[in-house]
Protein backbone atom coordinates (compact mmCIF):
# COMPACT_ATOMS: atom_id res chain seq x y z
CA UNK A 1 0.00 0.00 0.00
CA UNK A 2 1.72 3.16 -1.17
CA UNK A 3 1.93 6.08 1.27
CA UNK A 4 -0.80 8.65 0.87
CA UNK A 5 -3.02 6.30 -1.14
CA UNK A 6 -6.67 7.24 -1.01
CA UNK A 7 -8.71 4.37 0.37
CA UNK A 8 -12.44 4.15 0.90
CA UNK A 9 -13.79 3.08 4.27
CA UNK A 10 -14.65 -0.41 3.02
CA UNK A 11 -11.20 -0.83 1.45
CA UNK A 12 -9.65 -0.09 4.81
CA UNK A 13 -11.95 -2.58 6.49
CA UNK A 14 -11.08 -5.24 3.93
CA UNK A 15 -7.43 -4.89 4.92
CA UNK A 16 -7.98 -7.14 7.91
CA UNK A 17 -8.60 -10.03 5.53
CA UNK A 18 -5.19 -9.75 3.96
CA UNK A 19 -3.01 -12.74 4.90
CA UNK A 20 -0.30 -11.78 7.32
CA UNK A 21 -2.03 -8.60 8.42
CA UNK A 22 -2.24 -8.41 12.18
CA UNK A 23 -2.62 -5.68 14.76
CA UNK A 24 -1.56 -7.92 17.63
CA UNK A 25 1.52 -6.95 19.63
CA UNK A 26 2.21 -10.51 20.64
CA UNK A 27 1.74 -13.76 18.86
CA UNK A 28 0.00 -16.38 20.98
CA UNK A 29 -0.76 -20.03 20.33
CA UNK A 30 -4.00 -19.24 18.61
CA UNK A 31 -3.77 -15.69 17.33
CA UNK A 32 -1.68 -12.83 16.10
CA UNK A 33 -0.25 -14.26 12.92
CA UNK A 34 -2.69 -12.65 10.49
CA UNK A 35 -4.08 -16.01 9.39
CA UNK A 36 -7.57 -16.24 10.90
CA UNK A 37 -9.49 -13.62 8.93
CA UNK A 38 -7.92 -14.75 5.67
CA UNK A 39 -9.14 -18.29 6.34
CA UNK A 40 -12.61 -16.97 7.11
CA UNK A 41 -12.80 -15.03 3.89
CA UNK A 42 -11.52 -17.92 1.76
CA UNK A 43 -14.05 -20.31 3.20
CA UNK A 44 -16.90 -17.91 2.63
CA UNK A 45 -15.78 -17.25 -0.93
CA UNK A 46 -15.53 -20.99 -1.51
CA UNK A 47 -19.23 -21.15 -0.73
CA UNK A 48 -19.78 -18.23 -3.17
CA UNK A 49 -20.67 -15.93 -0.34
CA UNK A 50 -19.62 -12.49 0.81
CA UNK A 51 -18.49 -11.01 4.09
CA UNK A 52 -19.04 -7.34 4.88
CA UNK A 53 -17.94 -5.24 7.78
CA UNK A 54 -19.71 -2.28 9.34
CA UNK A 55 -17.90 -0.61 12.13
CA UNK A 56 -17.80 2.55 14.14
CA UNK A 57 -15.09 3.45 16.59
CA UNK A 58 -16.44 3.14 20.12
CA UNK A 59 -19.77 1.80 18.83
CA UNK A 60 -19.12 -1.74 17.79
CA UNK A 61 -18.64 -3.88 14.71
CA UNK A 62 -21.03 -5.96 12.63
CA UNK A 63 -19.72 -8.73 10.38
CA UNK A 64 -22.33 -9.71 7.81
CA UNK A 65 -21.87 -13.07 6.15
CA UNK A 66 -24.03 -13.63 3.07
CA UNK A 67 -24.30 -17.18 1.75
CA UNK A 68 -26.34 -18.38 -1.22
CA UNK A 69 -28.79 -21.24 -0.68
CA UNK A 70 -27.03 -23.62 -3.02
CA UNK A 71 -27.28 -26.56 -0.64
CA UNK A 72 -30.08 -28.97 -1.11
CA UNK A 73 -32.77 -27.92 1.29
CA UNK A 74 -36.07 -29.62 1.68
CA UNK A 75 -39.11 -28.53 3.61
CA UNK A 76 -40.59 -31.40 5.53
CA UNK A 77 -42.74 -32.47 8.40
CA UNK A 78 -40.91 -33.94 11.33
CA UNK A 79 -42.46 -37.29 12.30
CA UNK A 80 -41.75 -39.11 15.52
CA UNK A 81 -41.83 -42.91 15.70
CA UNK A 82 -40.75 -44.22 19.07
CA UNK A 83 -37.46 -42.49 19.86
CA UNK A 84 -36.58 -41.83 16.25
CA UNK A 85 -37.51 -38.91 14.08
CA UNK A 86 -38.03 -38.84 10.35
CA UNK A 87 -38.49 -36.05 7.85
CA UNK A 88 -41.21 -36.45 5.23
CA UNK A 89 -40.95 -33.84 2.48
CA UNK A 90 -44.01 -31.61 2.54
CA UNK A 91 -44.71 -32.02 -1.15
CA UNK A 92 -45.55 -35.70 -0.59
CA UNK A 93 -47.97 -35.09 2.26
CA UNK A 94 -51.68 -34.75 1.60
CA UNK A 95 -53.16 -34.72 5.07
CA UNK A 96 -52.80 -35.99 8.60
CA UNK A 97 -55.46 -37.31 10.92
CA UNK A 98 -56.23 -39.42 13.94
CA UNK A 99 -58.71 -42.03 12.76
CA UNK A 100 -61.81 -42.98 14.69
CA UNK A 101 -61.99 -46.68 15.61
CA UNK A 102 -64.68 -47.36 13.05
CA UNK A 103 -62.37 -46.08 10.31
CA UNK A 104 -59.63 -48.59 11.04
CA UNK A 105 -59.91 -51.97 9.39
CA UNK A 106 -57.77 -54.89 10.44
CA UNK A 107 -56.72 -58.01 8.67
CA UNK A 108 -55.93 -60.92 11.00
CA UNK A 109 -55.78 -58.61 14.00
CA UNK A 110 -53.31 -56.14 12.50
CA UNK A 111 -54.54 -52.69 11.40
CA UNK A 112 -54.08 -52.66 7.66
CA UNK A 113 -56.47 -50.12 6.18
CA UNK A 114 -57.70 -46.66 7.03
CA UNK A 115 -60.87 -45.19 5.65
CA UNK A 116 -60.42 -41.54 4.75
CA UNK A 117 -63.70 -40.02 3.56
CA UNK A 118 -64.64 -42.36 0.72
CA UNK A 119 -61.28 -44.01 0.13
CA UNK A 120 -59.77 -47.06 1.73
CA UNK A 121 -56.04 -46.54 2.07
CA UNK A 122 -53.43 -49.17 2.93
CA UNK A 123 -51.73 -48.49 6.25
CA UNK A 124 -47.94 -48.70 6.52
CA UNK A 125 -46.47 -48.75 9.98
CA UNK A 126 -43.14 -46.91 9.93
CA UNK A 127 -42.29 -48.69 13.16
CA UNK A 128 -42.57 -51.99 11.39
CA UNK A 129 -40.59 -50.86 8.31
CA UNK A 130 -37.73 -49.50 10.40
CA UNK A 131 -37.85 -52.04 13.20
CA UNK A 132 -38.69 -49.54 15.93
CA UNK A 133 -40.04 -51.23 19.00
CA UNK A 134 -41.44 -48.65 21.38
CA UNK A 135 -43.87 -47.04 18.94
CA UNK A 136 -47.61 -46.64 19.36
CA UNK A 137 -49.38 -49.56 17.72
CA UNK A 138 -52.98 -48.39 17.83
CA UNK A 139 -53.73 -45.92 15.00
CA UNK A 140 -56.51 -44.37 17.07
CA UNK A 141 -53.95 -43.27 19.66
CA UNK A 142 -51.31 -42.25 17.15
CA UNK A 143 -51.22 -40.15 14.01
CA UNK A 144 -51.84 -41.19 10.44
CA UNK A 145 -50.18 -39.19 7.66
CA UNK A 146 -51.54 -39.61 4.15
CA UNK A 147 -48.80 -39.40 1.51
CA UNK A 148 -48.97 -39.56 -2.23
CA UNK A 149 -46.56 -40.61 -4.90
CA UNK A 150 -47.49 -40.66 -8.55
CA UNK A 151 -51.18 -41.05 -7.91
CA UNK A 152 -50.82 -43.73 -5.25
CA UNK A 153 -52.07 -42.79 -1.82
CA UNK A 154 -50.86 -44.49 1.32
CA UNK A 155 -51.46 -43.94 5.02
CA UNK A 156 -48.38 -43.89 7.27
CA UNK A 157 -48.68 -44.73 10.92
CA UNK A 158 -46.45 -42.56 13.10
CA UNK A 159 -46.52 -41.60 16.77
CA UNK A 160 -46.71 -37.88 16.38
CA UNK A 161 -46.25 -34.95 14.05
CA UNK A 162 -43.65 -32.77 15.66
CA UNK A 163 -43.62 -29.82 13.33
CA UNK A 164 -42.56 -28.35 10.03
CA UNK A 165 -38.91 -27.76 9.37
CA UNK A 166 -36.54 -26.94 6.57
CA UNK A 167 -33.61 -29.31 6.63
CA UNK A 168 -30.36 -29.62 4.74
CA UNK A 169 -30.26 -32.89 2.85
CA UNK A 170 -27.12 -34.83 3.68
CA UNK A 171 -26.26 -37.77 1.53
CA UNK A 172 -25.88 -41.00 3.50
CA UNK A 173 -22.93 -42.01 1.40
CA UNK A 174 -22.26 -44.73 -1.18
CA UNK A 175 -23.13 -47.42 1.34
CA UNK A 176 -26.78 -46.51 1.31
CA UNK A 177 -27.31 -45.51 -2.29
CA UNK A 178 -29.80 -48.27 -2.94
CA UNK A 179 -31.74 -48.20 0.28
CA UNK A 180 -35.34 -47.69 -0.71
CA UNK A 181 -37.55 -45.29 1.13
CA UNK A 182 -34.70 -43.15 2.46
CA UNK A 183 -33.53 -40.16 0.42
CA UNK A 184 -30.84 -38.98 2.80
CA UNK A 185 -30.29 -37.76 6.32
CA UNK A 186 -30.91 -34.47 8.04
CA UNK A 187 -29.06 -33.19 11.06
CA UNK A 188 -31.75 -32.05 13.45
CA UNK A 189 -31.57 -29.30 16.02
CA UNK A 190 -30.14 -31.52 18.75
CA UNK A 191 -27.42 -32.98 16.52
CA UNK A 192 -29.20 -36.28 15.98
CA UNK A 193 -29.91 -37.59 12.53
CA UNK A 194 -33.43 -37.79 11.11
CA UNK A 195 -33.75 -39.96 8.04
CA UNK A 196 -35.42 -38.15 5.15
CA UNK A 197 -38.12 -40.34 3.68
CA UNK A 198 -38.95 -40.71 0.05
CA UNK A 199 -42.67 -41.29 -0.48
CA UNK A 200 -42.30 -43.46 -3.57
CA UNK A 201 -39.71 -45.63 -1.86
CA UNK A 202 -41.77 -46.08 1.28
CA UNK A 203 -44.78 -47.10 -0.78
CA UNK A 204 -42.76 -49.66 -2.72
CA UNK A 205 -41.33 -50.98 0.56
CA UNK A 206 -44.82 -51.97 1.49
CA UNK A 207 -45.10 -53.94 -1.72
CA UNK A 208 -41.89 -55.76 -0.92
CA UNK A 209 -42.94 -56.46 2.63
CA UNK A 210 -46.19 -58.03 1.54
CA UNK A 211 -44.34 -60.10 -1.03
CA UNK A 212 -42.10 -61.47 1.72
CA UNK A 213 -45.00 -62.12 4.04
CA UNK A 214 -46.84 -64.04 1.33
Amino acid at each position, binding site marked *: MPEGANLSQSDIHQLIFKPGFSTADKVTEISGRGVGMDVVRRNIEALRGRIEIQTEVGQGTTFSIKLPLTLAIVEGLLLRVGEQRFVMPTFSIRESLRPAPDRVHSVQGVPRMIQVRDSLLPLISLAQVFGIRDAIANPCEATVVVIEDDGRFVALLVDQLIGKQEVVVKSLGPA*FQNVRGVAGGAILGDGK*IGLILDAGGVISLRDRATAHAA
Partner: protein
Amino acid sequence: MSKTAVKDETQRSSDLQQSLAGKYLTFALASEEYGLPVLRVREIIKMMDITAVPQVPHYVRGVINLRGKVIAVVDLRLKFNLEAMPAGDRTAIIVVELDLPAGRTLVGVLVDAVSEVLNIVPDEIEPTPTFGAQVDTTFMLGVAKVKGTVKILLDLNQVFEAEGALPRVA
Protein backbone atom coordinates in the same frame (compact mmCIF):
# COMPACT_ATOMS: atom_id res chain seq x y z
CA MET B 1 11.05 -77.22 -3.30
CA SER B 2 14.06 -76.41 -5.51
CA LYS B 3 16.72 -74.05 -4.25
CA THR B 4 15.56 -71.13 -6.41
CA ALA B 5 11.97 -71.62 -5.36
CA VAL B 6 12.96 -71.47 -1.70
CA LYS B 7 14.99 -68.30 -2.38
CA ASP B 8 12.02 -66.70 -4.20
CA GLU B 9 9.78 -67.54 -1.30
CA THR B 10 12.15 -65.95 1.21
CA GLN B 11 12.55 -62.89 -1.03
CA ARG B 12 8.78 -62.49 -1.35
CA SER B 13 8.42 -62.96 2.35
CA SER B 14 10.93 -60.29 3.22
CA ASP B 15 9.44 -57.93 0.59
CA LEU B 16 6.12 -58.44 2.29
CA GLN B 17 7.63 -57.73 5.67
CA GLN B 18 9.20 -54.52 4.40
CA SER B 19 6.02 -53.32 2.74
CA LEU B 20 3.84 -54.07 5.74
CA ALA B 21 6.14 -52.59 8.35
CA GLY B 22 4.99 -49.32 9.82
CA LYS B 23 2.68 -47.85 12.39
CA TYR B 24 -0.58 -49.58 13.17
CA LEU B 25 -3.44 -48.67 15.43
CA THR B 26 -4.29 -51.76 17.43
CA PHE B 27 -7.71 -52.53 18.80
CA ALA B 28 -9.54 -55.38 20.46
CA LEU B 29 -12.54 -57.38 19.28
CA ALA B 30 -13.61 -60.00 21.81
CA SER B 31 -10.38 -61.84 22.59
CA GLU B 32 -8.77 -61.00 19.25
CA GLU B 33 -6.39 -58.15 18.54
CA TYR B 34 -6.24 -56.36 15.21
CA GLY B 35 -4.14 -53.66 13.62
CA LEU B 36 -5.09 -50.93 11.16
CA PRO B 37 -2.57 -48.92 9.15
CA VAL B 38 -2.46 -45.69 11.09
CA LEU B 39 -2.43 -43.52 7.96
CA ARG B 40 -5.97 -44.70 7.20
CA VAL B 41 -7.28 -43.68 10.59
CA ARG B 42 -8.94 -40.26 10.59
CA GLU B 43 -10.11 -40.13 14.17
CA ILE B 44 -11.34 -42.14 17.14
CA ILE B 45 -14.55 -41.25 18.87
CA LYS B 46 -16.49 -42.58 21.81
CA MET B 47 -19.56 -44.66 21.27
CA MET B 48 -22.53 -42.49 20.39
CA ASP B 49 -26.13 -42.90 19.33
CA ILE B 50 -26.37 -44.57 15.96
CA THR B 51 -29.41 -43.94 13.76
CA ALA B 52 -30.49 -47.24 12.27
CA VAL B 53 -31.10 -47.44 8.52
CA PRO B 54 -33.37 -50.14 7.07
CA GLN B 55 -32.51 -52.77 4.48
CA VAL B 56 -28.83 -53.06 5.26
CA PRO B 57 -26.81 -56.13 6.32
CA HIS B 58 -26.94 -56.80 10.06
CA TYR B 59 -23.40 -55.57 10.61
CA VAL B 60 -24.17 -52.08 9.30
CA ARG B 61 -25.47 -50.43 12.44
CA GLY B 62 -26.59 -47.22 10.77
CA VAL B 63 -25.30 -43.66 10.51
CA ILE B 64 -23.90 -41.04 12.86
CA ASN B 65 -23.45 -37.29 12.73
CA LEU B 66 -19.73 -36.52 12.72
CA ARG B 67 -19.55 -32.73 12.96
CA GLY B 68 -22.06 -32.27 10.19
CA LYS B 69 -21.00 -35.22 8.08
CA VAL B 70 -23.20 -38.28 7.95
CA ILE B 71 -21.11 -41.44 8.01
CA ALA B 72 -21.96 -45.13 8.12
CA VAL B 73 -20.97 -47.25 11.12
CA VAL B 74 -20.12 -50.92 10.77
CA ASP B 75 -20.01 -53.27 13.75
CA LEU B 76 -16.82 -55.24 13.17
CA ARG B 77 -17.90 -57.92 15.64
CA LEU B 78 -20.93 -58.68 13.55
CA LYS B 79 -18.98 -58.40 10.32
CA PHE B 80 -16.54 -61.03 11.58
CA ASN B 81 -19.35 -63.23 12.84
CA LEU B 82 -18.47 -62.76 16.49
CA GLU B 83 -21.17 -62.56 19.11
CA ALA B 84 -22.80 -59.16 19.42
CA MET B 85 -22.20 -57.38 22.69
CA PRO B 86 -23.78 -54.29 24.24
CA ALA B 87 -21.47 -51.28 24.23
CA GLY B 88 -19.01 -51.16 27.12
CA ASP B 89 -17.24 -48.11 28.48
CA ARG B 90 -14.28 -48.73 26.22
CA THR B 91 -16.31 -49.22 23.07
CA ALA B 92 -15.15 -46.81 20.39
CA ILE B 93 -15.73 -45.89 16.78
CA ILE B 94 -12.63 -45.67 14.62
CA VAL B 95 -13.23 -43.41 11.64
CA VAL B 96 -11.25 -44.72 8.70
CA GLU B 97 -10.69 -43.58 5.16
CA LEU B 98 -11.46 -46.17 2.51
CA ASP B 99 -10.60 -46.14 -1.16
CA LEU B 100 -13.75 -47.52 -2.69
CA PRO B 101 -14.85 -47.59 -6.34
CA ALA B 102 -17.25 -44.82 -5.39
CA GLY B 103 -14.30 -42.73 -4.25
CA ARG B 104 -12.70 -41.86 -0.91
CA THR B 105 -15.19 -42.65 1.79
CA LEU B 106 -15.16 -42.23 5.54
CA VAL B 107 -16.58 -45.16 7.46
CA GLY B 108 -16.90 -45.69 11.18
CA VAL B 109 -15.80 -49.04 12.58
CA LEU B 110 -17.22 -50.11 15.92
CA VAL B 111 -14.69 -51.93 18.11
CA ASP B 112 -14.54 -53.14 21.71
CA ALA B 113 -11.53 -51.14 22.77
CA VAL B 114 -8.75 -49.16 21.17
CA SER B 115 -5.27 -50.12 22.36
CA GLU B 116 -2.27 -48.21 21.09
CA VAL B 117 -0.29 -47.21 18.04
CA LEU B 118 2.51 -49.68 17.50
CA ASN B 119 5.49 -49.33 15.26
CA ILE B 120 5.75 -52.76 13.72
CA VAL B 121 9.14 -53.69 12.32
CA PRO B 122 9.65 -56.11 9.41
CA ASP B 123 10.97 -58.85 11.71
CA GLU B 124 7.71 -58.97 13.62
CA ILE B 125 5.63 -59.59 10.53
CA GLU B 126 4.59 -62.99 9.25
CA PRO B 127 2.63 -63.65 6.10
CA THR B 128 -0.95 -64.74 6.68
CA PRO B 129 -0.99 -68.42 7.59
CA THR B 130 -3.27 -70.62 5.58
CA PHE B 131 -6.01 -72.08 7.74
CA GLY B 132 -7.40 -74.21 4.99
CA ALA B 133 -10.27 -73.50 2.63
CA GLN B 134 -12.74 -72.88 5.47
CA VAL B 135 -11.40 -69.53 6.57
CA ASP B 136 -11.45 -66.49 4.27
CA THR B 137 -8.25 -64.58 4.78
CA THR B 138 -8.45 -62.00 2.00
CA PHE B 139 -8.94 -59.22 4.52
CA MET B 140 -5.71 -60.04 6.37
CA LEU B 141 -2.57 -58.25 5.25
CA GLY B 142 -0.48 -60.40 7.52
CA VAL B 143 0.10 -61.19 11.14
CA ALA B 144 2.37 -59.41 13.59
CA LYS B 145 3.94 -60.93 16.68
CA VAL B 146 4.45 -58.12 19.12
CA LYS B 147 5.36 -58.41 22.78
CA GLY B 148 4.19 -61.98 22.92
CA THR B 149 0.77 -61.26 21.42
CA VAL B 150 -0.47 -61.76 17.92
CA LYS B 151 -2.12 -58.90 16.05
CA ILE B 152 -3.98 -59.52 12.83
CA LEU B 153 -3.19 -56.78 10.35
CA LEU B 154 -6.33 -55.77 8.47
CA ASP B 155 -6.71 -54.72 4.88
CA LEU B 156 -9.68 -52.40 5.27
CA ASN B 157 -10.50 -52.12 1.61
CA GLN B 158 -10.82 -55.90 1.49
CA VAL B 159 -13.02 -56.03 4.57
CA PHE B 160 -15.46 -53.71 2.87
CA GLU B 161 -14.95 -54.81 -0.69
CA ALA B 162 -15.48 -58.54 -0.23
CA GLU B 163 -19.07 -59.60 -0.95
CA GLY B 164 -20.01 -55.96 -1.24
CA ALA B 165 -19.98 -55.33 2.44
CA LEU B 166 -21.20 -51.80 1.92
CA PRO B 167 -24.63 -52.82 0.81
CA ARG B 168 -25.85 -52.83 -2.72
CA VAL B 169 -29.48 -53.65 -2.12
CA ALA B 170 -31.12 -54.74 -5.34
